[in-house]
C-alpha cells in the first residue's frame, strides 16, 4: 500500500470514510445516546480518547509481540482486552484526577467497551497495515468523525422531536433516516480524498 501522509489520513478518516456514516461502526450506542446533546458530546469525547489510546497500545503489541511470535490468530483476544483495560484505566484515572469530569463522563465509559467503533478501528489498523503514526492519526480522526456525527445527529433529533413523525417511524426509525441523510451529505466529500 502506498504511504498516506498523516494530514490526508486525518481528514479522510474524519470526512470521507467517516467511521460511523461510511463504515457503520458504533451505530448501536449512537442510536441510544444521540437523544441529547450533552451526553452525545460526553460520549463523543470519551470515544476520541479511548480510540487514540487503544490504537496506540494495540499497534506495538501487534507488531512487537503477535507478529514475531506468530500468534496473529490471537489478535481479537488481545484487542478486546486492550480496549477493556484502557476503558477501565481511564475510568480510574479520571475518577482520581477530576471528579467533576468523572461525573459527566464516567457513565459513558463502560458503554465504550461494547462500542464496535473502537474494535473496528483497531482491526482496520491491522488490515490496512498502518505504521504507528498512521494508526494513532487514524484513531484520532475516526474519533473526531464519530464525535462530529453524534453531536450533529443529537442537534437534529432535538428538532425532530417537535415534528409530527408517523407512529411506526418514531424512535429508531426516524433516527436511522436522519443518519441516512447525513451519510448522503458525507458521501459528497468522497470525491475529494480517497484513502483505503
Amino acid at each position, binding site marked *: 500500500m502506498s504511504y498516506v501522509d498523516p494530514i490526508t489520513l486525518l481528514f479522510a478518516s474524519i470526512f470521507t470514510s467517516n467511521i460511523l456514516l461510511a463504515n457503520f*461502526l458504533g*451505530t*448501536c450506542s449512537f442510536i441510544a445516546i444521540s437523544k441529547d446533546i450533552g451526553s452525545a458530546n460526553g460520549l463523543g469525547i470519551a470515544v476520541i480518547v479511548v480510540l487514540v489510546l487503544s490504537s496506540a497500545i494495540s499497534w506495538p503489541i501487534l507488531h512487537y509481540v503477535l507478529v514475531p511470535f506468530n500468534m496473529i490468530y490471537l489478535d*481479537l483476544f488481545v484487542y*478486546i482486552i486492550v480496549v477493556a483495560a484502557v476503558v477501565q484505566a481511564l475510568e480510574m484515572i479520571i475518577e482520581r484526577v477530576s471528579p467533576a469530569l468523572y461525573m459527566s463522563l464516567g457513565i459513558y465509559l463502560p458503554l465504550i467497551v461494547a462500542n464496535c467503533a473502537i*474494535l473496528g478501528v483497531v482491526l482496520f489498523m491491522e488490515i490496512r497495515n498502518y505504521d504507528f503514526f498512521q494508526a494513532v492519526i487514524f484513531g484520532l480522526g475516526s474519533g473526531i468523525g464519530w464525535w462530529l456525527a453524534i453531536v450533529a445527529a443529537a442537534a437534529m433529533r432535538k428538532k425532530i422531536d417537535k415534528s409530527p413523525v408517523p407512529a*411506526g417511524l418514531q424512535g429508531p*426509525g426516524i433516527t*436511522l433516516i436522519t443518519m*441516512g441523510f447525513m451519510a448522503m451529505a458525507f458521501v459528497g466529500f468522497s470525491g475529494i480524498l480517497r484513502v483505503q
Partner: protein
Amino acid sequence: MSTPTYKQVWKENLNMNNPVLVQVLGICSTLAVTNKVVNTLIMTVGVSLVTAFASYTLSWIRHLIARRVRMIFQVLAITFYVVLLQLILNAFAPEVARSLGPYVGLIITNCIVMGRTETFAPANPPLISWWDGFTSGLGYMLVLGTMSLIREPLAFGTIADIPIFPPEYVSSGNNWTIAIMAPSAFFLVAIIIWVFKTRALKVEAAAKAPKPATAGGTK
C-alpha cells in the same frame, strides 16, 4: 421467572421481539454486510452460531461466575467462538472472509450476542439458551437477508452472483449504485423498521380493542 418454552422463544426472537427491528441491536453489521447475498448469509450464520454457543457456554457455567466479573467472562467466551469462526472462514472461504473484512471480528461487539448472553443465558438452562441464541441469530438473518435481497439486485443486477436482470441493466450504467452505498442502508433498515412497527402497533391495537366485546359475548 419460569423457563420459556422452545416455541415461545422462537416466536419472540423471530417476530415480536426481533433483535434488529424491535430491540435495535446489531445495527452496525446489519448495515455493513448486506451489500451481497452470499456475504450476508455467511455472516448471519456465523452470528447465529456464535450467539448460540456463547449462550450455551455461559449458561452452563452461570452458577460459577460471580456477578461482578461476568462481563469479562462473556467477552472472552464470545471472543473464543469468534476466533474459531474466523479460522474456519479463513480456511474454507478465504474470499468471503476478505470481503467481510473486520466485520467478522466485530461479532464480538455485536450487541445481539452481548444482549443474549447478558439477559437470557444467566437466567436459563444451557439448552434453551442455545436455542434462544440461535433463534436470535435467525431473527437477525431474516432482516439482513431481506435487505441484501433488495440491495444486491439493485446495484449489481444479481442475486448471489447469479444475474437476474438483463445485462444491459448494469452495462448501460443505469444501475442503482447508491443501493450498496451507505445512505441506502440507513434508509432501507429504517423503512423495514417502519413497516414492522406499524404492523406491530396494529396487532397491539387489535389485541386491545375487541377484548371487552368477546369477554361479554362468549360467557
